[in-house]
């Protein structure tokens, strides 16, 4: 870990004023880890734990406003979330451990960085170390020819195949959340789908935040009437592991046909993976196995597996079929 300055911000204005050359620290569950690994070397840490952004509030339009500092555990166990957005609660509770969830925040989880083992190596991106275009653009990608069982099959580029690790974000992608930020140029909102960036040629740019911008809260739209939802996470062991494949589905079925559908996937994409292809394949179709399989096929049609992760394509399909079955079950 490198030496750093530490500032405790009492309010958003002070936080923004201290943001130059700095990183905001909330729960610290990713950032401190990465600082120990020399992946993150901020000159200054601005502690935002005092910021009054820890509330969950109903919005006049029936939506829900989640403060950026709301802890994962508080969000998962919130009555409103359990009742109106159970897919978010399920996704949160499938991630990490209770101790980590007690620390990790909503805003922080949006910025969770990949678990790519090469990215996390202290010497990655340095001469003699593993190539990592996220760490040092142009240094290469050691995962392409390395051990890449956990890596992405969707949204990859020849510069980066790192998986986005968050469960919460998969649910938020399906819920079409809106991210509110505040920065030197004022306040703005970012639709969830535009927040995370594909790696392309610039895998070091992971999201749409401008320098100095702070996430203040996340809005969830009004729950879809009559819709059911589910989050399914598949992994090697039963707990404390990132997804090999996961799916968040929100669906409404009328007269046996799918009238509303949102599909997002985790564990397989370089960002929380909203599948418009799956949704298009399902909309208006009968809620049956044939439709689900067609949707799964469509969702993975552009998948590009590497040496160790070809199985993820089939696993993600199965994950999707089961999730669609669960979310559309009438009983």
């Amino acid at each position, binding site marked *: 870990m490198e030496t750093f300055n530490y500032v405790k911000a009492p309010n958003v204005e002070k936080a923004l004023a201290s943001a130059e050359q700095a990183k905001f620290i909330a729960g610290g569950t990713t950032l401190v880890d990465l600082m120990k690994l020399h992946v993150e070397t901020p000159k200054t840490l601005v502690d935002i734990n005092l910021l009054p952004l820890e509330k969950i509030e109903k919005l006049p339009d029936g939506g829900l406003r989640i403060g950026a500092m709301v802890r994962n555990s508080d969000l998962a166990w919130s009555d409103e979330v359990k009742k109106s957005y159970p897919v978010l609660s399920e996704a949160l509770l499938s991630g990490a451990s209770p101790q980590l969830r007690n620390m990790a925040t909503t805003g922080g989880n949006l910025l969770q960085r990949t678990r790519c*083992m090469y990215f996390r190596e202290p010497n990655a991106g340095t001469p003699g170390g593993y190539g990592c275009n996220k760490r040092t653009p142009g240094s290469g990608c050691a995962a392409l020819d390395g*051990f890449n069982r956990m890596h992405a099959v969707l949204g990859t580029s020849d510069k980066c195949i790192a998986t986005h690790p968050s469960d919460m974000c998969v649910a938020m992608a399906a819920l079409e959340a809106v991210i509110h930020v505040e920065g030197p140029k004022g306040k703005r909102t970012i639709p969830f789908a535009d927040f995370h960036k594909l790696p392309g040629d610039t895998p070091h740019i992971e999201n749409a935040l401008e320098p100095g911008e702070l996430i203040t809260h996340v809005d969830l739209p009004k729950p879809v009437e009559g819709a059911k939802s589910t989050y*399914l996470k598949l992994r090697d062991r039963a707990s404390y592991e990132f997804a090999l494949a996961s799916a968040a589905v929100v669906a409404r079925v009328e007269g046996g046909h799918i009238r509303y559908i949102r599909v997002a996937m985790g564990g397989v994409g370089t960002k929380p993976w909203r599948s418009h292809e799956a949704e298009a394949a399902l909309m208006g179709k009968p809620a049956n196995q044939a439709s689900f399989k067609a949707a799964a096929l469509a969702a993975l049609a552009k998948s590009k597996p590497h040496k160790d992760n070809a199985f993820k394509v089939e696993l993600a399909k199965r994950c999707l079929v089961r999730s669609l079955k669960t979310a559309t079950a009438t009983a």
Partner: protein
Amino acid sequence: MSTTPSGIIGRPTPRIDGPLKTTGAAKYATDFHIDGMAYAVPFVSSIASGRIRNLDTSAAEKMPGVLLVLHRGNIGQLYRTVPGDGDATNSEVRPAFEDDIVRHWGQYVALVVAETFEEATSAAAVIHAEYDLETPKLRSSLDDFTGERKKGSHRGNFDAAFGSAPVKVDQTYVTPIETHNPIEMHGSVAVWDRDQLTMFETTQGVVNHRVVMAQTLGIPIENVRVVTRFLGSGFGGKLFPWPHCAMNAVAACKLGRPVKLCLPRRMMFSSVGYRPRTEQRMRLGASMDGKLLALSHDYLNSTSLLDDYDEGCAEATPYLYSVANLSVTSGLVRRNLGAPMYMRGPGAVPGLYAMEAAMNELADELKIDPVKLRILNDAEKDEDKNIPFSSRHYRECLEVGAKKFGWEKRTVGIGSMRRYGKILGWGMAGASWVALRLPCTAHVEFHANGRVSVRSGTQDIGTGTYTTFAQVVHEKTGVPLDRIDVVIGDSALPDGPMSGGSMVTGSVLNAIANASTEAMKKMIALSTGTEGSPLKGTKAEELEFAEGRIRKKDSAAGDPEFAEILKLARVDGLSAEGKTVPTWEDPQSKDKSLHSYGAQFVEVEWEPDIARLRVSRVVTVIDAGRIINPKAAANQIAGAVVMGVGMGLLEETVHDQRTGQPINGSMADYLMATCADSPEIDVTFLDYPDPAMGEYGARGVGEIGLAGVAAAITAAVHHATGVRVRELPVKIEDLLQSKILQA
């Protein structure tokens, strides 16, 4: 604590050291903070093969707080241990910094010592090494083996018998590199007082550690003391010293200050051993009615460039079943990896995975129930050594296990059993583990303050050694458990055994019992000779020692507590020594085949549509002689079963094929079973004392619970999914091959 001595052996007894551990008062090696202590952090190689061309430590030496950067150029002479010296077993042949050749990723290149851990860590990060690279041998598969195979056990004519056998199995089974991963990382605190060195160590053997350190450092053995009061387990990884211990001791000596070195988790994957990869070809020939006619076990295991580590996979093969024609061969395949090291149930655990998996395949070939196949081939004697078994109840393990599990309800068809929308798979396997009683010494001492202490130079790896020792002293003397002090984990104590091979209980209890008996005799003698004693002048043979008192056998009159006698005699403590005769010298045991046995029955739940498989239920029946503390023993077996779930489904150390780095070297990426993966576990002990093991007939339970679990899991996986996995762990990739798509 109110317990009666008569029933204490075999009674579930809470750990006497439990409160120390739950309150944090138990001091583990790196909990020793000595005044003036400095902190050491290793700098390790980032390549697997080559030569260090240049090592630049100048920037590190200028960093704040840095006291010393130790490396090949300034460490001075470190020695190898004497080859073949059984009292000085080392982990690696090569001491730290012996030459400038790098043979594995993570090899120690330098050691930074600074005022604080943070300063040492920062300084280590700016050390720069240049290497002349060579192409490392990292291939995972061992199929490039070309050397001579070593011949092991042999009887009859395997080739002829296998050739003519009507039913055959010929398969190769693979176990991957597994890493020990005790929760407590390896650590060392070295303190010099002039020429006297005290080392607070994470070791499973303080006595051996002391000898190795004396030999490595080239100092008299009487100048070294090794202390391990508590150990956060080791699973074999802490049996013998690793190079960091001597490195740290030299640093402390050069600085004239205590130095602490605690390995970070990532170095636990590269620098302190692992279970090597094994590839085991099993050939079984049988008659149509299931009698084994021929058995061969040909295995390879990986090892390092300098260490001839033989995993010994065929440990159980020659005696577990009756078979007239048998052959065993082995070979070592060198890789640019650190030295392998014994891991819980070394040899037998990977070996029995292969053996029992092959037996299950044979049962399927023969369409015979796998339990019946094993009973049919049960051995009456050890056919390898042609000697009787001391106490073998393998058949009863199988029968009791089958009954408790409900095995008779098993339907044979693949995917044929269902529950709550999931497919069930049932599988089973046998288990065994060697028993041995090592020579050792214990002292038992009565103190004038009313307490009794027992001392031996062994240590508690976390299994409950403190408690079993106290149980024996309580049984013999009647002094309550809360007045018994167990003093272990110090090489200054009388020689005790390593905490390895499940041997501490079977070995030390006899010495403690003998020492207790001798100490009670001495107390009786003192009571009859002490002025003012109510027993003064009484004949010793009229007296007995019971309930912590000395009393006349025929009357309740005058029964002083031992402390009263000591006070009257103005003696602070009275001590006696007891010894354990090793099994190989004891006429009761020396011509017997001593082993523990077990049976594992496993249920898996399988959701084919999402390829999700979990172990839901395990019944394990263990024949390990008499069980001293069923509570701690069941805990050992259940823990081993959970480890078996990891071995079967999760654990595998993956090395990057370019750098040789264990690339999943963290607790998040190296998958072990979590609580959520732990099945319902039913542990049964048969509890037959083994007369060859001495007074208590205990054989130890540290490793047997792991044996067989993986083979039972792969059988259950096959039963549920139809997929036959012969390379551990069973992965989702394998399960996706199942033809069954819906439950």
